[in-house]
């Protein structure tokens, strides 16, 4: 009896970790875009543990010419940043962003979720329509939840594409985020004498999604 069941068990046994590592390696090499852990698990044979395989793989590629990087919930291979000089750049042209667009992007990244009015408040100038459009088109920002304040304004948050472009694991890894927060510079402070609503609004937003 035991002999009968043994071969069956081995049928359903997950492949050895070294094999799983090869599989993750192959799948990630085949894709230019980051692949989510869930998708890896779905594509690998039953019983595989993509997360564990990724951990092994990341170690293997440490210091190599290509590195395994995390982008939000997804993973991808990228060439090591110090070797950028070897690459031919004419194929990928980085669009020159306006100063307004860059600042707006930074404000969205650090203050997300943030409304248009808040962006304008921080910059002290109204936002031209093209700025948001451009960032949406680049797929660096997307709409977040509507703010639960009168008018239910839309909010903006950054995307995984943004994280991917700037080599960030998550929005928490934005440079200087902690210092800015500690200095109170990410607070939304209303103008003294202004209505209280605004404070409520930003506090609420913070509660809804601190991180996206």
């Amino acid at each position, binding site marked *: 009896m035991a002999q009968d069941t043994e071969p069956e068990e081995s049928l359903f046994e997950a492949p050895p970790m070294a094999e799983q590592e090869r599989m993750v390696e192959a799948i990630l090499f085949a894709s230019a875009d980051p692949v989510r852990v869930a998708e890896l698990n779905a594509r690998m044979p039953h019983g595989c543990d993509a997360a564990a395989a990724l951990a092994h793989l990341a170690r293997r590629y440490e210091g190599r010419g290509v590195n395994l990087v995390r982008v939000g919930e997804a993973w991808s291979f990228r060439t090591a940043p110090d070797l950028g000089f070897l690459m031919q750049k004419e194929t990928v042209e980085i669009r020159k962003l306006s100063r307004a667009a860059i600042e707006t992007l930074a404000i969205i990244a650090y203050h997300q979720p943030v409304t248009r009015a808040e962006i304008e408040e921080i*910059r002290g*100038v109204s936002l031209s329509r093209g700025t948001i459009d451009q960032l949406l088109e680049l797929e660096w920002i997307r709409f977040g939840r509507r703010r639960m304040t009168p008018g239910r304004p839309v909010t903006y948050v950054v995307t995984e594409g943004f994280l991917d472009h700037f080599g960030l694991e998550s929005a928490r890894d934005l440079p200087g985020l902690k210092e800015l927060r500690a200095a109170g510079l990410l607070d939304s402070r209303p103008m003294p004498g202004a209505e209280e609503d605004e404070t409520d609004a930003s506090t609420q937003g913070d509660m809804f999604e601190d991180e996206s």
Partner: protein
Amino acid sequence: MDEDAAFDQADDPVAARRAAEALIVDVDGYEGPLDMLLSLARGQKVDLRRISVLHLAEQYLAFIASAKALRIELAADYLVMAAWLAFLKSRLLLPPDPSEAGPSGEDLAAHLAFQLERLEAMRGAAARLMARDQKGRDFFVRGLTEDVTRIRRVSYTATLLDLMQAYARIRTKDEFRPYALDRESVYTMEEALERMRGMIGYAGDWVDLSSWLPEGWQLDPARRRAATAAHFAASLELVKQGALEIRQGDTFAPIHIRKRVP
């Protein structure tokens, strides 16, 4: 900074004018009044937290005044900011009026300082962000990608019941043939109704219903019967709807219809 020079050399009208003009030209380079204030504040060369908001307000107002003297049109938001700063300045200079409600000059000044500091911080954050390694510039994605090919395999199935029913159907074709209308000679009321609705507008005077039968349905008896019945039923329906009038002079006499004029 140019702005500083503009005010230091106020006694030299030509130099002042030039400097002011240079500043005006630069207005295009500013992202709004707050940006300009930040730029002026940097000229104070102190930590933004210890900036003299009063001095800043004076600098800004002096700039607006010189721009006005040069008859240069300024965007409305620059003027709004000037008005607000003038108000702030008066609040800061005058002793607080206890009867007056609202925030104190210090509160307003502190908020302006906060706004400037926050804008400055965001500028720095933006710069640090853009200085990061960027995809397509510093690091690169896989060039030779492989698409996941989606294979759709179709599998067919049938049950024993399907099989037996199929066989029964074939073997008993004659007796099993399900009841089906001989559609060749059937004209439904729905069809007639549809047809008559389209024609009704033209039936101003009494016409024989039989003349309404469609072509190909007037000669063959079976077809004529079917079409007549359908059109008669449809006529009754239209009468009920108030669109048509119907009459028959005598038993088996021709049936006449006409459009009902409301």
